[in-house]
């Protein structure tokens, strides 16, 4: 315990400890104190340097003020290049317009048309803008440019001066535009859309109503075949257990001969072992044929064709064996 000098117990700590013990009986109480006493106490001035968030009730707003007209100067210098002179440019983020459009088929979402609190606009500009150099504006400039963006949305008239007291009181066009009546806030929330798990002959439309235009992908994405593992096609093909090495160093018949397979196997006729044709017929459709037969030939064994075992075949190299099996699986055509 000497590692944890600051051994304090408090209500929630006890509760947590209890929960942890429930969750993991392997933990002995003495091994895990509820407080490690780590971390340094944060001083007020330390907190103040980072505590920049602003809530709708205005908590967090620093003392300051700025007018629409002062804001225009800031905006023209530091914002207009990206957001457009009137906040109309959609290239980065459109800042003005769209008020009243949210219920339409083409809603225009801007800080003017969507936000329910002007404080959110202040908070965001203060923390994140201007984009290339965030947190560089003084509180005064943030009040001013916030006032200007609000005026671009006709939410405040020219001449308006905003400060820490007036900003939270601004009536935003969409202030009653939000709801929390939905099932997404809790694990047990009620889903709004329900499907059934029908398994057979389900009545569902299979008419295709949307697909990309023919030249869209090539034009916008280039050659997307490059975005797949380039083995992709071959990998998919290799699943098909059919011959694939027609022109390899040694051909199948020759390998069967020099490796002694033909002592027991012929193409058409069963002798000691099954005919290659029968083997092909039996396994060709099996995705694992190549692998399984290769293993079987190496290990030898009986049971798939009768009592007679095949001795382990150690002579062919891995490469030759691969060629042999592929050749056998293609048997009907090389008889």
């Amino acid at each position, binding site marked *: 315990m000497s590692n944890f000098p600051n051994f304090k117990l408090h209500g929630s700590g006890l509760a947590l400890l209890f929960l942890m013990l429930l969750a993991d009986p392997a933990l002995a109480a003495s091994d895990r104190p509820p407080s490690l006493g780590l971390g340094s106490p944060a001083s007020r001035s330390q907190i103040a340097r980072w505590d920049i968030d602003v809530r709708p009730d205005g908590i967090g707003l620093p003392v300051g003020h700025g007018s629409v007209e002062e804001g225009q100067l800031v905006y023209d210098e530091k914002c207009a290049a990206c957001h457009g002179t009137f906040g109309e440019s959609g290239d*980065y983020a459109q800042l003005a317009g769209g008020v009243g459009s949210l219920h339409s088929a083409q809603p225009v979402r801007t800080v003017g048309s969507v936000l329910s*609190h002007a404080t959110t606009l202040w908070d965001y500009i203060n923390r994140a803008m201007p984009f290339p150099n965030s947190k560089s504006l003084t509180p005064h400039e943030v009040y001013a440019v916030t006032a200007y963006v609000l005026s671009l949305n006709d939410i405040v008239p020219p001449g308006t001066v905003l400060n820490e007291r007036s900003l939270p009181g601004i009536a935003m066009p969409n202030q009653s535009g939000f709801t929390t009546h939905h099932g997404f806030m809790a694990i047990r929330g009620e889903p709004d859309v329900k499907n059934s798990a029908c398994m057979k002959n389900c009545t569902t439309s299979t008419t295709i109503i949307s697909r990309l235009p023919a030249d869209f992908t090539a034009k916008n994405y280039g050659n997307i075949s490059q975005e797949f593992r380039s083995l992709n096609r*071959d990998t998919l*093909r290799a699943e098909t257990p059919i011959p694939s090495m027609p022109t390899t160093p040694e051909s199948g018949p020759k390998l069967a001969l020099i490796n002694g397979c033909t002592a027991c196997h012929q193409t058409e006729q069963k002798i000691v072992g099954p005919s290659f044709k029968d083997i092909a017929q039996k396994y060709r459709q099996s995705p694992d044929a190549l692998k399984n037969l290769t293993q079987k030939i190496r290990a030898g064994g009986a049971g798939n064709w009768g009592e007679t075992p095949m001795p382990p075949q150690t002579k062919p190299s891995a490469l030759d064996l691969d060629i042999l099996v592929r050749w056998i699986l293609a048997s009907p055509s090389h008889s």
Partner: protein
Amino acid sequence: MLNEDNALPLSPQEPAVRGSYGRVAPAPTHFLVPGGDTRRRLLGGLLGGSATLFGAASFAQQKTERQVNPPPSTGLPRWSQALGQPVNTTYGTPSEYEKNIVRRQSPGLTTTNQSSIAFAPLQNLFGIITPSGLHFERDHSGRPDVDPDQHRLLIHGLVREAKIFTMADILRYPSVSRIHFIECGANTGMEWANVAVPTVQYSHGMLSCSEYTGVLLSTLLDEVGYDSKKSRYVLAEGADAASLTRSIPIEVALNDVMVVYGQNGEMLRPENGYPLRLLVPGVQGVSSVKWLRRLKVGDAAFETREETRHYTDLMPDGISRQYTWVQEAKSVITSPSGGQKLLDHGYYEITGLAWSGRGAVKRVDVSTDGGRNWKTASLQAPILSKALTRFRMDWRWGGDSALLQSRVIDSTGYVQPLIKQLRAVRGARSIYHNNAIQTWQVDPLGNVSNVQLS
């Protein structure tokens, strides 16, 4: 059925095997002579349809460039004879041959590359863990590389004692490792009104899954003595230039939220919040604030830009749903998927991913006829709560047109919906939370493409 005459022309030396198992397969590439791959090129011309769409010709080209001409005497590829490289003592990177497997931006989606999205290449991934170097990335003001020695986490607000933690402090706390997915709330958001993107990378690639290691937020909240009576929300704030903020409800914060430094066995990558991030399992990804520098316990939600202007779901009546945290159950087939091409008839493994922000995946069904008939897929263990689950189903493609779909049912019994069912309730303008059943069409030539059904 595929008209055999349209199929691959067989070269004389290849046995003409036809039937339900399709065409001949090609030789492994290391047996091919550079530039001599006539059949492949023919195939590109014939099967690529328009060569631009699939780019089969350039694909063959690409293959040819990297073929190694084997010494004729042995037929062995170079790497079977020449001494290889010394052991690797630098940070290992994937094979040269995997260089196309990368995160990608969707053209035209964002104006800047800093406030942007790089999508994970789901079509190329196996299992459930996303390699850290392929985890999707969404930044709002670019990706910082934060010096861990200078990084601090401040926890304050309704607490007994506000505290500043160094990374060394955080690493001293009892740790947990858990596998969870992170899915952006806007994943598949481009597809609300119609098909908009060609591949699963762009349609579902704001989704990744990692093993995360860190401290339970409850441990840290307890350390500072949060006010258990008045606390309602915890504000999480990033240390990047955007200093993105989100409100986390206290019940969620105390439940399974983690303050994370480890990802897949190593420290977080810069693009995923190095050295410290929040992880809010099952909740839209924006809550898992990266480069976490501040947690403030408050008695009300903070109404940040990221929970009012964005990440709210606009309904047809003009009202936006706010605080839509939970990522509902969703699944997608990652192979075969849009942009792929089936070259042979015969066996294919249909495989994909399923997940739910409400718990574990209970079942995944797969349909190859556009949802008329379904078969239950097999699920690969482990099947974890709020984690990706891999599903698989055997499939034999005979050359008919097919409509592939997957449908997940999660531990709450919720069944993944159709896009038309979602649209009927939410319209097509809500951007977020599109968890519709995805349809991939396989045409008789084997081209797989993204479609939506009526």
